[in-house]
């Protein structure tokens, strides 16, 4: 179940990447009327304000955009195949890929031809020059920009055929496990970007004519598979497929995105530099090197962008979902729209930096509008995206499995936990800070987390705040991830060991923190509630230790939190300030705020808590009401020299634990008086009797020993 939830998160990121690749294609085509040095007639329009910058930018986008698309297609391809089985897979692909290809071509081709003819007539000053005929080779066919659907179908067929052979030959999965290992290794070491591009490089080197700018020549003129495209996009698809097989590949990608980005930038810089000197490849070392570096650039961009998306876009966002849904339709129909705008503005006496953004904005506006009105809630949307959105819903419903982020405890369900740690393990290097801990905070209660230093209290708080991630287990805040800023708007926090900027005044610090929340308290009201009004206009650096803590408390409560995390809030406060802070905490509880408070001091828990959890060595060793805890600490330690054995004494009522160390008998008792009476009665030779109140730390230490 957990794995499914996690993989759904990843799908959001990959959907975003696919949408990006497709929308980037729109921006790419929109730039093509501004290419300097292109002979008239090669595109629908040659703008009168060409741009070297757009030419370079389009080149960069073109390096990776289709490979990125096929990479993601490979990932989703395997996902779909496993989900549906072969028959249903082909039926699904027929609906979603083949049908749009055929129907799209029939509708779009005449439109595109019309705009091309209009544009080229305009370019040639009113007379249409003789159009070049389609090459008379077998299979020649003007696929237009829809070639990618055709190519995708071919690749599906090839990969499914190879898969059938591999499953037949590789019974023990030895080969496949080896491939998985190689893939993970090559991503981990970032060697993949240097290796995966080699087949493509070989195909490019073999091209008789290759303009560097065109990258992988688009196979848009023929139904016969073209070698560079088939090899390049086939590799991309295959790697995407294998990444879906691998358990670790996506995690590795998300942690290596910067390295990949650096490779991408460096390789791209070199490619542009060389291309400026020599736009067309001549056989020789440069061409070979160029093709190899091109392969590196392709893969570094693909991995960098996918990794960055996994790192930053893994959560569900309604806006991104909408754009990702719209992107397929938009890419399918964009070409006539974009070209029409290019033709229209082509002779305007304006700079490209005005015209290009205009084309983009106008095209996207029209395309999104067409998606919203014609596609999203109609059978076309059903066909293209497998889902028809209802019209009356203003916004996209969240995907199944996610819960609404609401800071209101009422929305977390009746009696449900406001914040919860379930089965959490967290290690820092060799130290285990939390070992399978379960804690929950219920609406409106104050939970005191008690424990000695290093028990794992602050680690637990950090998990709830989304500052660290668990090695195992589930963290929830208001029923979902604490990474979601909407949920964090419902929390207030006072951390240990945090210093605020010393130049700012307490009032300014509160005002700044208030700006993060949707409905904060008035600043003066916060200052009053936290009891810091009298020194609010002094710089933080000039405040006493206690006043600083009080200021941090004010910062924690300024946003009317539904849950408040207070990590050792009263350390360093004098008695008066501590009493004042306790009163503020009681007022918050009366307002229905839930509070988690970590402390060393039992009296603090006694004064405030509804429930107490005692944490030691990363585990909850006792949990219950304050009275339960008081009973724990009411234990006393008795020691004496006696002829009685530990085993005898252990069986007595009121004895929790007994042991013999060196010369003395050590007893922990809840009823010390009773035990002492019986000791003296049973052993008249007893000497050196001592009875001590067990301190809280001692009680913890003992509990820990018991728990071990």
């Amino acid at each position, binding site marked *: 179940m957990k794995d499914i*939830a996690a993989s759904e998160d990843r799908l959001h990121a990959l959907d975003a990447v696919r949408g990006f690749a497709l929308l980037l294609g729109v921006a790419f085509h929109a730039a093509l009327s501004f290419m300097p040095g292109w002979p008239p007639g090669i595109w629908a329009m040659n703008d009168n304000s060409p741009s070297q910058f757009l030419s370079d930018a389009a080149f960069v986008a073109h390096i990776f955009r289709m490979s990125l698309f096929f990479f993601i297609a490979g990932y989703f391809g395997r996902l779909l195949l496993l989900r549906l089985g072969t028959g249903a897979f082909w039926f699904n692909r027929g609906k979603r890929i083949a049908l749009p290809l055929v129907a799209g071509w029939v509708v779009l081709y005449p439109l595109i031809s019309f705009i091309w003819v209009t544009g080229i007539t305009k370019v040639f000053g009113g007379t249409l020059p003789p159009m070049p005929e389609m090459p008379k080779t077998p299979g020649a066919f003007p696929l237009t920009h829809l070639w990618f659907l055709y190519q995708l179908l071919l690749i599906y067929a090839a990969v499914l055929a190879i898969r059938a052979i591999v499953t037949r030959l590789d019974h023990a999965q030895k080969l496949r496990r080896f491939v998985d290992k190689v893939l993970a290794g090559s991503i981990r070491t970032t060697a993949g970007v240097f290796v995966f591009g080699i087949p493509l490089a070989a195909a490019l080197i073999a091209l008789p004519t290759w303009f560097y700018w065109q990258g992988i020549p688009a196979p848009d003129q023929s139904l016969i598979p073209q070698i560079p495209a088939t090899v390049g996009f086939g590799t991309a698809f295959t790697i995407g497929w294998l990444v879906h097989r691998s358990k670790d590949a996506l995690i590795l990608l998300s942690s290596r995105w910067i390295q990949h980005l650096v490779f991408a930038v460096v390789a791209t810089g070199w490619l542009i530099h060389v291309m400026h000197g020599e736009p067309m490849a001549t056989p020789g070392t440069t061409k070979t090197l160029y093709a190899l570096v091109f392969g590196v650039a392709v893969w570094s961009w693909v991995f960098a962008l996918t990794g960055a998306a996994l790192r930053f876009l893994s959560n569900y966002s309604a806006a991104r*979902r909408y754009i990702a849904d719209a992107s397929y339709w938009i890419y399918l129909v964009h070409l006539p729209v974009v070209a029409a705008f290019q033709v229209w503005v082509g002779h305007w006496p304006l700079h490209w930096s005005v015209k290009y953004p205009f084309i983009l904005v106008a095209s996207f506006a029209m395309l999104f509008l067409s998606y919203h009105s014609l596609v999203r809630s109609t059978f076309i949307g059903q066909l293209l995206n497998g889902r028809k959105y209802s019209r009356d819903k203003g916004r996209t419903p969240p995907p199944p499995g996610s819960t609404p982020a609401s800071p209101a405890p009422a929305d977390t369900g009746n009696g449900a936990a406001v914040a919860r740690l379930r089965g959490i393990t967290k290690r820092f290097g060799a130290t285990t800070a939390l070992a399978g801990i379960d804690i929950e905070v219920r609406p409106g209660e104050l939970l005191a987390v008690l424990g000695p230093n290093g028990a794992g209290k602050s680690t637990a708080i950090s998990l709830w*705040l989304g500052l660290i991630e668990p090695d195992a287990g589930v963290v929830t805040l208001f029923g979902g991830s604490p990474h979601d800023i909407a949920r964090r708007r419902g929390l207030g*926090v006072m951390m240990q060991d*945090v210093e605020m900027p010393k130049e*700012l005044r307490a009032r300014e610090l509160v005002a700044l923190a208030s700006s993060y929340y949707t409905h904060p308290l008035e600043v003066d009201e916060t200052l009053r509630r936290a009891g810091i009004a009298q020194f609010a206009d002094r710089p933080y650096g000039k405040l006493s230790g206690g006043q600083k803590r009080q200021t941090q408390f004010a910062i924690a409560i300024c946003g009317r939190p539904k849950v408040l995390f207070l990590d050792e809030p009263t350390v360093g406060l004098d008695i008066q300030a501590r009493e004042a802070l306790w009163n503020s905490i009681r007022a918050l509880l009366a307002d229905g705020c839930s509070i988690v408070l970590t402390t060393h001091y039992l009296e603090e828990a006694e004064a405030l808590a509804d429930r107490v959890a005692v944490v030691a060595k990363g585990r909850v060793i006792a949990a219950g009401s304050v009275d339960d805890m008081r009973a724990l600490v009411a234990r006393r330690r008795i020691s004496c020299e006696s002829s009685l054995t530990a085993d005898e004494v252990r069986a007595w009522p009121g004895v929790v634990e007994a042991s013999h160390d060196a010369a003395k008998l050590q007893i922990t008792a809840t009823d010390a008086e009773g035990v002492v009476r019986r000791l003296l009665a049973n052993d008249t030779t007893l000497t050196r009797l001592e009875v001590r109140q067990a301190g809280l730390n001692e009680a913890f230490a003992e509990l820990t020993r018991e728990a071990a």
Partner: protein
Amino acid sequence: MNSMTLTSTGSTPTAPTSRRVFGAYLAETRYELMRQLRNPGIAIPVLVLPVALYALFAVAIAGEAIAKDPGVGIYMFAGFAVMAVTMPALFGIGATLAMERDMGLLRLKRAQPAPAGAWLVAKIACGIGLGLIAYLPMVIVALASGKLALDAGQMVAMSAALLSGTIPFCAMGLMVGTVVSGSAAPGYANLIYLPGCYLSGMFFPLPKSMHWQVQIWPQFHLDQLAMHAAGATKFQFEPVMIAVVSLIGYTALFSAVAIWRLARKG
């Protein structure tokens, strides 16, 4: 594998309006600016030093040379202006960020519902803003003393070039701030900044034997960008595109290191 559920949702009834989000960015920027201006350790050297040095060297000492060749005036102005606009970016951002990391303030901001990029935007805006505050008095001194022979268009172009040139130094500040600790940050910032000021030849012309190394320093490229903007052909030693690309490259490099460090250490 981390199996924490990351389910989440989009907008909720309690999501703040975009005005409030903008307000949060604005507040962050405003208080960042206030605290830097209130910190004498940053404000005085960064804001007063460049204009004082410019007044001393260009107006008082080199006045005669400038009267003979107005190009020298542009050269000197550009040199000190580069210093003026880059120091707040580097020292303001680098030192404060390193300190804030030590103080745990970044952790607190990550826990609070602060917009993710607000502190970063605030720091960069402050770097540019303080750069402007340091730069304007120089313009006044230069124009009042008549040591800068530029027309209004060239003046505007040069100012725009200089101010946009603060961006790579903001990135450098971010890098320093994320790599070293708070107490060491000013030292390291000086260590990578000062050699560039002298070895880039922006304060005084270098002997030919040292020309090979000027391109290493980001200051050199910013100085060159300013020379191109001002149309001072005599002091243009590299094409404008090289200057622009180098500055972008440095920005990317420094930012990458900063992001890498932030991603690892937070």
